[in-house]
């Protein structure tokens, strides 16, 4: 999955990089297609058509590649001006190149450097038989007609090309901003219910146990710091597990002895990277669906380890004895899917999220590659 590049000068210029090999190839290809069109356009094809095409191709490739070369070298300067100026400049370049090359070609033909018998070199004949005569009359109307036709075609084609580059650039920019927005939207949000309940807990503790109230406030602040942070930067597993502990510490004040937690995480590589807030929502889910609706409370188990350079983490909760249609509404699938998507966004197909539903237990298992270095992590995707 492509990570959107931070907006740079590169992105604001709508023109593609004409120095790139792929771009040069595209220009050659499109130029050749244009030559075909030009040859096929006349109402009648003759035996000369193939030869016409050779000249047309030669001319069009010259114009295309020369323009590309100039745009390639002026790219650094183009980046500094705005898109309207860059568009105007590149348009003028193509027209100018067409003009110059038309004149040069004409001169070459007239002076017999290039042997032309039939039609013109750039644009095939509009009829038959006029070509040989035309070549000898530099100062005849045919000269200007030919020049005008070349310029006209060049003006139209380059306008279409520039428009295409512009639209493609817009499309790319939109795609990137959409992608960025999607990552942000995927960023885990802390449930409002949890926020207000925690506030209520703090309000209750403030007088009865000020020290504990202080702790809970610190935990809550820490959680929100992570929640409001940048979702696209991964954190070490140790950090994420700490966030889970802080979260559970808050919930324990509220739920009292109804909540029990067990940890078996000694085998987990604490330096392994994981998208921020990807475990906490699963623990929150476990509390929301496994503990809160259960009159007698329940147990949350967090375990994990490493196997063959892959990390596994399991978050399980006991299921409430109460009948299931009274279970909590809304959002159960969402938080889980969200975590899965973010894991895939970071690890690619190497990330797995599995749900194991038993009669008395609900477990979510995450498996992902062990990545400890962000840069290599980004590269392996």
């Amino acid at each position: 999955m492509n990570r959107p590049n931070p907006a740079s000068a590169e992105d604001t210029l709508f023109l593609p990089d004409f120095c790139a090999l792929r771009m040069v190839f595209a220009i050659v290809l499109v130029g050749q297609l244009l030559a075909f069109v030009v040859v096929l356009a006349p109402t009648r094809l003759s035996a000369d058509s193939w030869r016409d095409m050779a000249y047309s191709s030669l001319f069009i490739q010259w114009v295309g590649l020369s323009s590309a070369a100039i745009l390639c070298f002026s790219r650094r300067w183009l980046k500094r001006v705005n898109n309207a100026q860059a568009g105007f400049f590149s348009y003028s370049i193509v027209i100018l190149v067409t003009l110059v090359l038309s004149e040069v070609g004409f001169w070459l033909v007239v002076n017999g450097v290039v042997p032309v018998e039939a039609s013109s070199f750039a644009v095939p004949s509009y009829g038959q038989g006029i070509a040989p005569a035309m070549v000898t009359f530099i100062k005849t109307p045919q000269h200007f007609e030919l020049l005008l036709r070349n310029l006209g075609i060049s003006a139209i084609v380059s306008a279409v090309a520039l428009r295409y580059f512009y639209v493609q650039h817009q499309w790319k920019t939109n795609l990137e901003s959409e992608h960025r927005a999607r990552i942000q939207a995927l960023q885990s949000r802390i449930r409002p219910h949890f926020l207000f309940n925690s506030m209520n807990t703090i309000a209750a503790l403030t007088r009865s146990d000020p020290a504990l109230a202080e702790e809970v406030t610190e935990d809550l602040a820490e959680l929100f710091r992570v929640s409001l942070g940048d979702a696209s930067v991964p954190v070490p597993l140790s950090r994420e597990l700490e966030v889970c502990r802080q979260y559970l510490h808050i919930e324990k004040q509220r739920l009292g002895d109804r909540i029990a937690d067990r940890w078996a995480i000694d085998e987990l590589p604490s330096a392994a990277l994981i998208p921020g807030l990807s475990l906490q929502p699963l623990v929150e889910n476990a509390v929301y669906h496994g503990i809160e609706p259960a009159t007698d409370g329940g147990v949350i188990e967090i375990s994990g380890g490493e196997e063959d350079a892959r990390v596994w983490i399991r978050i399980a909760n006991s299921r409430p004895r109460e009948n299931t249609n009274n279970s909590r509404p809304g959002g159960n699938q969402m938080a889980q899917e969200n975590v899965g998507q973010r894991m895939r966004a970071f690890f690619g197909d190497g990330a797995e999220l599995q749900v194991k539903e038993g009669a008395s237990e609900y477990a979510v298992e995450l498996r992902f590659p062990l990545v400890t270095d962000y840069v290599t992590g980004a590269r392996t995707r």
Partner: protein
Amino acid sequence: MKVLIVDDEPLARARLYRLVTELEDDIVPEEAGNGPEALRRVQENTVDVVLLDIRMPGMDGIEVARHLKHLDRAPAVIFTTAYDSHALQAFEASAVDYLLKPIRRGRLKEALERARTLTGRQIDALEVTDPGAGKARTHVSASLKGDLKLVPVADVRFFRAEHKYVVARYAHGELVLDEALSALEEEFKQGFMRVHRNALVALAHVRGLQKHAGGGYRLRFDGIEDAVEVSRRCLPDVRRALKERA
């Protein structure tokens, strides 16, 4: 004025307790940690105002309020909740007031004063409109000589319409409900099935389908001897449901 604080979280109860006692010298609130306990307390001692948390495990606050309405002298209900944007709309008309946690002293005072000025009749007039937005209750209830009788829905074998009322048959007896069978069918879509124009049965408790002398079929249930007639029209559906269950 007698106040009952109902909340499953000890700290939330403690805070409300303190706020109430600080507001009014003469009030000594009682506390309940869940729905059934709250209903028991209300019946044991007359309670004027219930501060009722909406989100509780098992029987939630909205259901408690629905059962309370069956009482001869229903207490005024003030709902408390941390954040329930949808529920707020649902019970706006049904309660004296609702308070958002963390509850402010001033708001609590207002709500209690409002409750104090309401007469019993006005409280009865407060309708529980659209309670829980279609959520099924965990218990059915009826008032027996002023006492509220609660039966867990999970214990009910079947509901049968008889004349103008509906009887809920459970393992240890019957409860006459002041409700329509069609409404019960709608509410307990999950787990219950209409097998006859006048009967709704709990599939989980069905022991078997039996052909009787008259040619018709009857359903038998675990724990009770009563059987329920299955209408010919419903028979294929019943058979299918029992097969799926097996």
